């Protein structure tokens, strides 16, 4: 990792034509940009890109030199093997920091490569608790993990929604299963009964069979651990089967996409949770959506604010350390504490987000309203 900055600047020169005295700092971003969740992957990349472009516009100086941040986006296809390959590519390319990956399944094997290569990484969306328990020094995340989110959700369903009988569905991904299991535990601990535990997959569109089975168990609340692309159609089928139970999902379903996909089937009976605080509660978060929309001509999906915060955490730490060298800025990254768009960004000693606040939203007047 002692590639000289000059060499990088020369490489950058050929492609981007920056002034020779500018120092180029490469930041990597990895997410699935092809495949079924590529819309979320692109969203992550856009979030990191926005942070970097804003920093460049602001002008950042490190060690007396003007710095130009450059984002290198890679596609891991949500596949663990490809994840390690692109991780190695980024290390080779001399990136100083990595925002990614999206899925826990790709982030965990990739984190080993980053650790070996001495590149710190912040995942904006991998929620598997194990990620930060591997003992690697440079692994962080800006999103609450499954345990943090699941326990809030479980309690919420019992105490706020008054659920006595709960049905739980998960999509058999590392994310969905992890969240559903933690929610299951928390709900049981709060005194509710799990009347049905059903499963689907992340490519399914038809949930009639499991929903019919759930209907027979007559739950007060249905919880779904999975993504919006399944939650949307699932909502429609809930309505078509005449199920009146309340519907709760985690951050995977807490998107504008979910509202769009559920169509007229979504009602004020639908709740979801998001890590962090609502965007409009944070300074700088208020117009995040507009800035994003203006730049990319697309709506914020789910994790781009977290990717935005992750990239800014790196930039802040680098500024504090006055260096883009991982060895120098890593101690600052551990101490970082600033208001991001999703809440206060500060990490605990393992690398999880310290605050770990989880906000619950209810569907109201065509949008998610924080409760």
């Amino acid at each position, binding site marked *: 990792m002692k590639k000289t900055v000059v060499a990088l600047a020369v490489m950058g020169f050929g492609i981007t034509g920056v002034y020779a005295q500018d120092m180029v700092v490469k930041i990597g971003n990895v997410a699935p*940009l*092809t495949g079924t969740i590529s819309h979320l992957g692109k969203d992550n990349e856009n979030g990191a890109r926005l942070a970097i472009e804003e920093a460049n516009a602001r002008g950042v100086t490190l060690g007396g030199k003007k710095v130009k941040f450059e984002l290198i986006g*890679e*596609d891991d296809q*949500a*596949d*663990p*093997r490809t994840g*390690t*390959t*692109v991780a*190695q*590519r980024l*290390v*080779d*390319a001399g990136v100083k920091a990595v925002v990614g990956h999206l*899925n*826990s*399944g790709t982030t*965990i*094997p990739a984190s*080993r490569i980053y650790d070996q290569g001495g590149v710190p990484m912040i995942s904006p969306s991998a929620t*598997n608790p*194990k990620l930060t328990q*591997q003992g690697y020094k440079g692994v962080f995340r800006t999103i609450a993990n499954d345990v943090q989110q699941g326990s809030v959700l479980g309690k919420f369903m019992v105490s706020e929604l008054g659920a006595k009988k709960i049905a739980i569905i998960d999509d*058999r*991904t*590392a994310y*969905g*299963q*992890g969240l559903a299991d933690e929610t299951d535990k928390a709900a049981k601990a709060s005194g509710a009964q799990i009347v049905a535990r059903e*499963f689907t997959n992340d490519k399914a569109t038809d949930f009639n069979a499991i929903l019919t089975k759930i209907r027979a168990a007559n739950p007060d609340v249905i919880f779904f651990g999975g993504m919006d692309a399944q939650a949307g159609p699932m909502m429609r089928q809930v309505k078509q089967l005449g199920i009146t139970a309340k519907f709760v999902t985690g951050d995977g379903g807490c998107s504008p996409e979910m509202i769009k996909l559920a169509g007229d089937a979504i009602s004020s009976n639908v709740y979801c949770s998001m890590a962090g605080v609502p965007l409009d509660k944070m300074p700088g978060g208020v117009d995040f959506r507009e800035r994003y929309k203006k730049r990319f001509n697309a709506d914020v999906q789910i994790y781009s604010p977290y990717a935005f915060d992750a990239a800014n955490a790196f930039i802040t730490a680098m500024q504090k350390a006055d260096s883009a060298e991982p060895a120098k800025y890593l101690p600052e990254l551990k101490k970082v504490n600033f208001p991001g768009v999703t809440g206060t960004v500060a990490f605990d000693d393992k690398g999880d987000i310290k605050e770990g606040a989880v906000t619950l939203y209810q569907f109201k007047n065509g949008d998610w309203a924080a409760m």
Partner: protein
Amino acid sequence: MNELVAAVPWLGKRNPMAARWLLIILAIAAPFIAMQFGRSWVRILDFALLYMMLALGLNLVVGFAGLLDLGYIAFYAVGAYTFAFLASPHFGIHLPFWMVLPLGAAFAAVAGIMLGFPVLRLRGDYLAIVTLGFGEIIRIFMLNLNYPVNITNGPQGINMIDPIVLFGWDLSRNLQVTEEISIHSLYLYYYLFLACVIGSIIFIQRLQISRVGRAWAAMRDDELAAKAIGINTRNMKLLAFSLGATFGGVAGCLFGAFQGFVSPESFSLMESIAVLTMVVFGGMGNIAGAIVGAFVLALLPEILRDVAIPLQQTLFGKVILDPEVLRMLLLSLAMILMMLLRPAGLIPARARYAHPENLHRGGAAK
């Protein structure tokens, strides 16, 4: 080896000896050449070698014995999970590599026979769909066997798998030769995998010209005739499935140890299709074809990652398509064009033991 030698362009036919040495030198020097472009290319080469093993194994089943298998990746999964079970903190068992590898191979072989028995009567596309189903069944079990008893840890996968340790020598650490010189772990894995691939090639080469190989060729070309001349097609089919599976199992063990993490996502249907594509792309029914197919298709997507942006900049002066989109576009076009231009693959199987012309489709021809 001879097939590979003959496949070397220009030199192969004129001076086989020189071509042979060229290949050997290339195989040994490959990681050092790759290193010039970055360490990731050494990693890609490592994976390419694993794919070669898979392609060689699948080629036994599809190319030699003529049994279309769309669920081959299941054996890879069996191998990888065997290693993960027996050498990771998941169950707290840490058996050494040399004990786990044969076990992984054996379990995969048993899985191969388990698949083989019910499908003995099936042919062609019926066989294809049942093997596809078998692959999915294995994957779904891996995905769901965390409940009621946690065996596979479900979708979360198994992490912190032990690295390969040979005679007290940990391959995941860089080898310190002297104070200054150290050999990176990726090279060590490369040579281990290379040794496995070479071993497989030698084994398969001997097998191909053996009684079994000839029986397979006969069975593939005409099952009825093969039966009539006294070949026990049932045993031959089971042997093909289990031997093919063994290669998958070994590759899976190596994969699990190399990656340090296994989860069901790595064993999807698309991976089965990818390996089959390598075999057909390279040229079915011959060793060189499987090797070259795996090599080209493992490297091509990675090369496309690098050329996607510069290519557009020189052609159009700006980036029109995202690199990942262009990569998929070029990859799919390459698959289609390749099959149109060389339907028998990059290196068509040569006569004597392989008769691709007899594999023509359509009942009309028979």
